[in-house]
C-alpha cells in the first residue's frame, strides 16, 4: 500500500515526523511500520510534548532503587523490602465506556507492578467528574466505580484510598487515574529488559483480538463525536485472566526463570517488544503468526497494534523454557514462544515467513521531542484581581457548614469505598476514611502509608503554587498518619499541549511540583502524562494527581484523624487566617471559582512533617488531621465523626481560639500546612516542647467532648446530625440527581 499524506495524517503523524522516519530507515516505511511508529510516537507513549520538562524532575534520593524509565518506581523501605508503585490515567477510555475503561485502567496499572516481580498490595484511585446534577456525570461515576471495584475485588487486591471531586470542567472529560502499590524483596526485582542473544521471547496471557487498536493514538487526541467512531472494539476487562497472569508471573519470577518481562499496555505487542530491546540495547525478532489470536484473519498490523488486555511478554533464561511452559499450563494460560533476542538492535517482525517490519528498536523509543509554545492565559490576571471584600460575610454558619459537609467533593466517599474490598489480604490497618491508608508489611513491623491527592482549582488560579500544594498536601496526608513520606508518583492531566495557554499551565505546575519535591526531599519515581483532556467546553482544569508513599518503622505507631477521648486537648498547628480565595466555600456557597490561591511555605512544611513524625513516634498524640477543602470547620467536624466508619463513637468538641478577620474565612478558608492534633492533657508539656523545637506556629483551640460541635459563637450543632449529612450525602445525590 502506498503511504499517502492522508494516511500519515490518519495515523496522527506530522509531515516532518514522517520525514524523520524515512531518514531513520533510509526508505519509505511500509504500512505496518507506519503503524508501529505512529503508536510509539504518539503523545501517550512518546511523551513528545512533556519529555523535555519531565527530564528536569528530581528523581534521585537515597531510597530510590528505580526512578522513571521502568514500568514502575521502586523505593527501599529497609529490612530487604522495597515498595513498587505507579499511577496511570485511563481518562479517554473511561469517558467513552466508563465500566470497561476504568476496569482496564486498573488492570493496566496492576500489570505495571507485578511485571516488576512485586505482589500488589493496594490500589488507589483519583477521579474527577462533572456535577452530579448532570445525568451523564452520574452514569460515568456509577460505571467507573463499578469498573474499579469489580477488577480490584476479583483480583483480591484491596482498594484502600482514593480521591473524588466534582467540577464543571470535567463534565465531558472525566478523569480516572489508578495507582497501584506492591511490595517486593530487593533480590526479586526484575526489569523490562531483553538480553542474551538467542534467548526466547515468550508471549503469555489472553489471546489477541482487534480490540483497542490505536488506543494510544486515541488517547492523544481530544474527545469528539468522531472519536467514538474512530474507536475499534472496546477493550473488555477480564480480571480473572489477570489474576491467573499475576500468580503465574510472580511464580516465574520467584523461581528465577526470567531475564526480563514487560506487560503489554498501550501500543501492545509493539511497545513491549521495542522497549525491552531498547532498554537492553539489543534487537528482537518475533513472528506474529505464532501469537495466539482470538479473531480470524488478523494481519500483522492489527496483531502488533492490538491493545487486548491481560498479556505479557517475557524473555526466558536459557534452558528454562520447559519449566516456564509447565507453570503456565498449571495456571491454564496461553503461552507461545514467538521470537528471540538478537544483537542487531533491530525490531524485526515476521508473518508467515515474510519480514513485515524491520526498524531500529531504539528509534521507536526515542520519538521527537517538542518544546511547545507557551503563553500566560489572560484569566490568571483576572483571578488575581479578585477582592475578597466583594463577598459579604454571612451569618448562618451552621447552615453553611452543613452545606459544605454535604458537598459531594467534601462529603464522605463511603458510598464508593464500600463497593471496594479494602480489607482483603488482611494488611489494611487504617481503612479508607482517614487522611491516608496504612497497611502493614506482614513479615515485618513496618507499615506503609499512602495517599493520592490533587486540587484542580488551585492549579487553575495559580499553577505554580498549585503544583507545590498538590505535592505538599499528599505528603501531609501521609505525615498525619505518622509516616515519613519517602517518594511520589504523579499523573498530569491537562488539555491540549499544543495550545500555548495549556502548555504554560503545564510547565508552571511541573515547576511547582519539582520545587516541592526537592524542598520536601520526596523524590519523584515515575508517573504518567495525560494530555488532550478537552471537550467542546475547552480544556479541563490543570489537574496533577500526586500519589505519595510513606513508611512507618513501627506500624503500631500509626495515627488516625478522629478524636478519641473526651477531655483531650485540640491544637491547631499552622496559622489562623481568614483568606477565602480558591476555597470550596467560595465556590459552593457563593458560586465563585476564583480568588487568590493559598500559598505554601515548603520549609515550614518539611518541618511540620518531621514534627508530626516525632509526635507519632513518641505516641504523644491521639489524632492528627490535615485541614484541606472546607477549611478548619470541616476538618474539626471530620475529627468528631469520621471514627464511626470504623465502629468508633462520635464525639463533640468545643473550640475557642485567638482569631481576627472575617469569620467565614476563619472557618472555611483553606490556608495550607495546617494540622489539627488532639492529645491527652498529660502530654501537653512534651507536645508543646516538640512543636516549639520544630518552630511550629500553634495554639490550643479547644477541647474534645460532649455531643455538639461548638465553634466560637458561630457554630453550634449536634455532631450526630452533621455526621448523618456527611455520610449519606453522596449516595443520596447519586440516586436523586444531585439534589442535596
Amino acid at each position, binding site marked *: 500500500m502506498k503511504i499517502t499524506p492522508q494516511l500519515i495524517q490518519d495515523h496522527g503523524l506530522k509531515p516532518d515526523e514522517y520525514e524523520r522516519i524515512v531518514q531513520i530507515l533510509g526508505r519509505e516505511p511500509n504500512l505496518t511500520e507506519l503503524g508501529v511508529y505512529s503508536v510509539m510516537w504518539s503523545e501517550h507513549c512518546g511523551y513528545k510534548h512533556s519529555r523535555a520538562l519531565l527530564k528536569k524532575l528530581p528523581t534521585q534520593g537515597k531510597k530510590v532503587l528505580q526512578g522513571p524509565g521502568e514500568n514502575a518506581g521502586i523505593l527501599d523501605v529497609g529490612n530487604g523490602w522495597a515498595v513498587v508503585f505507579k499511577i496511570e490515567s485511563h481518562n479517554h477510555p473511561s469517558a467513552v465506556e466508563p465500566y470497561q475503561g476504568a476496569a482496564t485502567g486498573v488492570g493496566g496499572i496492576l500489570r505495571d507492578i507485578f511485571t516488576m516481580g512485586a505482589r500488589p498490595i493496594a490500589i488507589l484511585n483519583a477521579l474527577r467528574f462533572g456535577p452530579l446534577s448532570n445525568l451523564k456525570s452520574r452514569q460515568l461515576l456509577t460505571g467507573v466505580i463499578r469498573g474499579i471495584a469489580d477488577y480490584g475485588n*476479583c483480583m483480591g487486591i484491596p482498594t484502600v484510598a482514593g480521591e473524588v471531586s466534582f467540577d464543571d470542567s470535567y463534565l465531558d472529560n472525566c478523569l480516572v487515574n489508578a495507582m497501584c502499590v506492591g511490595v517486593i524483596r530487593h533480590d526479586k526485582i526484575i526489569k523490562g529488559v531483553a538480553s542474551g542473544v538467542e534467548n526466547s521471547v515468550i508471549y503469555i496471557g489472553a489471546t489477541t483480538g482487534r480490540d483497542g487498536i490505536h488506543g494510544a493514538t486515541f488517547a492523544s487526541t481530544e474527545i469528539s463525536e468522531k472519536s467514538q467512531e474512530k474507536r475499534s472494539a472496546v477493550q473488555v476487562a477480564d480480571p*480473572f485472566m489477570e489474576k*491467573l497472569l499475576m500468580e503465574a508471573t510472580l511464580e516465574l519470577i520467584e523461581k528465577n526463570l526470567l531475564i526480563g518481562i514487560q506487560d503489554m499496555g498501550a501500543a501492545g505487542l509493539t511497545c513491549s517488544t521495542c522497549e525491552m530491546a531498547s532498554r537492553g540495547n539489543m534487537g528482537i525478532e518475533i513472528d506474529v503468526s505464532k501469537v495466539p489470536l482470538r479473531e480470524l484473519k488478523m494481519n500483522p498490523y492489527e496483531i502488533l497494534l492490538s491493545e487486548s488486555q491481560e498479556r505479557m511478554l517475557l524473555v526466558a533464561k536459557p534452558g528454562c523454557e520447559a519449566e516456564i511452559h509447565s507453570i503456565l499450563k*498449571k495456571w491454564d494460560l496461553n503461552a507461545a514462544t514467538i521470537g528471540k533476542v538478537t544483537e542487531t538492535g533491530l525490531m524485526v517482525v515476521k508473518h508467515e515467513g515474510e519480514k513485515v517490519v524491520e526498524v531500529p528498536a531504539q528509534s521507536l523509543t526515542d520519538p521527537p521531542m517538542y518544546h511547545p509554545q507557551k503563553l500566560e492565559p489572560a484569566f490568571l490576571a483576572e483571578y488575581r484581581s479578585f477582592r475578597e471584600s466583594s463577598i459579604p460575610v454571612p451569618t448562618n454558619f451552621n447552615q453553611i457548614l452543613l452545606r459544605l459537609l454535604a458537598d459531594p467533593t467534601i462529603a464522605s466517599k463511603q458510598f464508593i469505598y*464500600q463497593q471496594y*474490598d479494602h*480489607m*482483603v489480604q*488482611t494488611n489494611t490497618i487504617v481503612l479508607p476514611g482517614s487522611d491516608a491508608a496504612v497497611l502493614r508489611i506482614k513479615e515485618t513491623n513496618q507499615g506503609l502509608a499512602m495517599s493520592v491527592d490533587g486540587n484542580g482549582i488551585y492549579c487553575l488560579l495559580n499553577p505554580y503554587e498549585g503544583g507545590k500544594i498538590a505535592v505538599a498536601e499528599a505528603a501531609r496526608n501521609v505525615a498525619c498518619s505518622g509516616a515519613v513520606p519517602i517518594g511520589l508518583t504523579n499523573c498530569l492531566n491537562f488539555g491540549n499541549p499544543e495550545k500555548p495557554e495549556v502548555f504554560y499551565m503545564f510547565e508552571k505546575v511541573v515547576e511547582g511540583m519539582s520545587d516541592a519535591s526537592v524542598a520536601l526531599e520526596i523524590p519523584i519515581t515515575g508517573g504518567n502524562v495525560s494530555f488532550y483532556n478537552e471537550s467542546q467546553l475547552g480544556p479541563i482544569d490543570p489537574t496533577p494527581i500526586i500519589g505519595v508513599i510513606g513508611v512507618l518503622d513501627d506500624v503500631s505507631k500509626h495515627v488516625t484523624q478522629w478524636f478519641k477521648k473526651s477531655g483531650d486537648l485540640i491544637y491547631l498547628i499552622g496559622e489562623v487566617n481568614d483568606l477565602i480565595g480558591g476555597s470550596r466555600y467560595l465556590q459552593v456557597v457563593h458560586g465563585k471559582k476564583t480568588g487568590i490561591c493559598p500559598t505554601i511555605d515548603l520549609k515550614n512544611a518539611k518541618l511540620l512533617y518531621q514534627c508530626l513524625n516525632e509526635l507519632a513516634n513518641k505516641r504523644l498524640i491521639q489524632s492528627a488531621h490535615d485541614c484541606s477543602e472546607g477549611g478548619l470547620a470541616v476538618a474539626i467536624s471530620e475529627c468528631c465523626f469520621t471514627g464511626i466508619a*470504623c465502629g468508633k463513637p462520635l464525639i463533640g468538641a468545643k473550640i475557642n481560639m485567638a482569631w481576627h478577620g472575617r469569620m467565614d474565612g476563619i472557618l472555611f478558608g483553606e490556608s495550607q500546612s495546617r494540622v489539627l492534633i488532639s492529645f491527652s492533657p498529660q502530654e501537653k508539656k512534651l507536645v508543646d516542647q516538640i512543636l516549639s523545637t520544630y518552630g511550629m506556629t500553634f495554639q490550643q483551640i479547644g477541647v474534645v467532648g460532649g455531643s455538639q460541635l461548638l465553634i466560637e459563637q458561630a457554630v453550634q450543632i449536634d455532631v450526630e446530625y452533621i455526621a448523618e449529612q456527611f455520610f449519606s450525602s453522596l449516595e443520596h445525590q447519586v440516586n436523586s440527581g444531585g439534589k442535596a
Partner: protein
Amino acid sequence: MRFSIIVFPGSNCDHDCEYAIRQVLKNPVEMIWHKNTDLKNPDCVVIPGGFSYGDYLRTGAIARFSPIMESIFNFANKGGLVIGICNGFQILCEAQFLPGVLLKNKNLRFVCRNTYVRVDEVDTPFTNQCKNSSVLSMPIAHGEGNFFIDEEGLKKLEDQHQIIMRYCNSKGQITDESNPNGSLKNIAGICNQARNIFGLMPHPERVCEKELGGIDGQLIWQSISNS
C-alpha cells in the same frame, strides 16, 4: 487440628486464611491446588473466599467441577469438617453440599464493611466456643450474599437448627436495617443436617488480630480446633 485450604483459580482469601490459622492460631495448614485430589489428611477443609473462575456465569458454578471437589465430598461424607467462607459458601451451595443459593445483593452493589452477626446455634463444631446468642463483629465483602431458599427448604433449615448465624445490629436484634444484602431471614451462615459442613458470608479470618480491628473471628477457628 490440621487444616487444608483449597486454592481455586481466582481464590483470593486463601492466604488470609492461611495467615490466621498458622500465624495467629498456630495450627498446621496445607494449601491444596484444586487440580489435585489428595487433601493431605486434614481435620478440617477450608474453602476460602475470592472469585473462583472470576465468578463468571454464577458464583461458585465452575469451581464445583474441580477434581478436588470429589475428595471433599468423600471427606465430608465420613464426617470431616468443611468450612466455606464467602465464595466458599457459594461453592458449597452450588455443589449442593449446602441447601439454598446466594443471589445478587439486593442493591446490586458489592459491599465491604463490618457487620454484626448473632450466633443462634452453638451446638456445632464451628461455634462451640461462642455463647448462645452472642454477637460477633465480622466484616463482609461480597456482591452475592443474598441467601435464598424456597419455603420448604427454609422450614427444614429452621426445624433442624441449621441457621447458625444471622445479621443483626450491635445489640443482637435481627432487623431490616442490619441486613446488608437482602438475605432471607437475615441469614449469614448455615450448616448441613449432619452439622459438619458450614458456610458463611462474613470473613472470620479478617478479624483475628487486634490491629485489624477485632478478634471475634478467632472464636470460629478455636471452635473448630476444639471439636
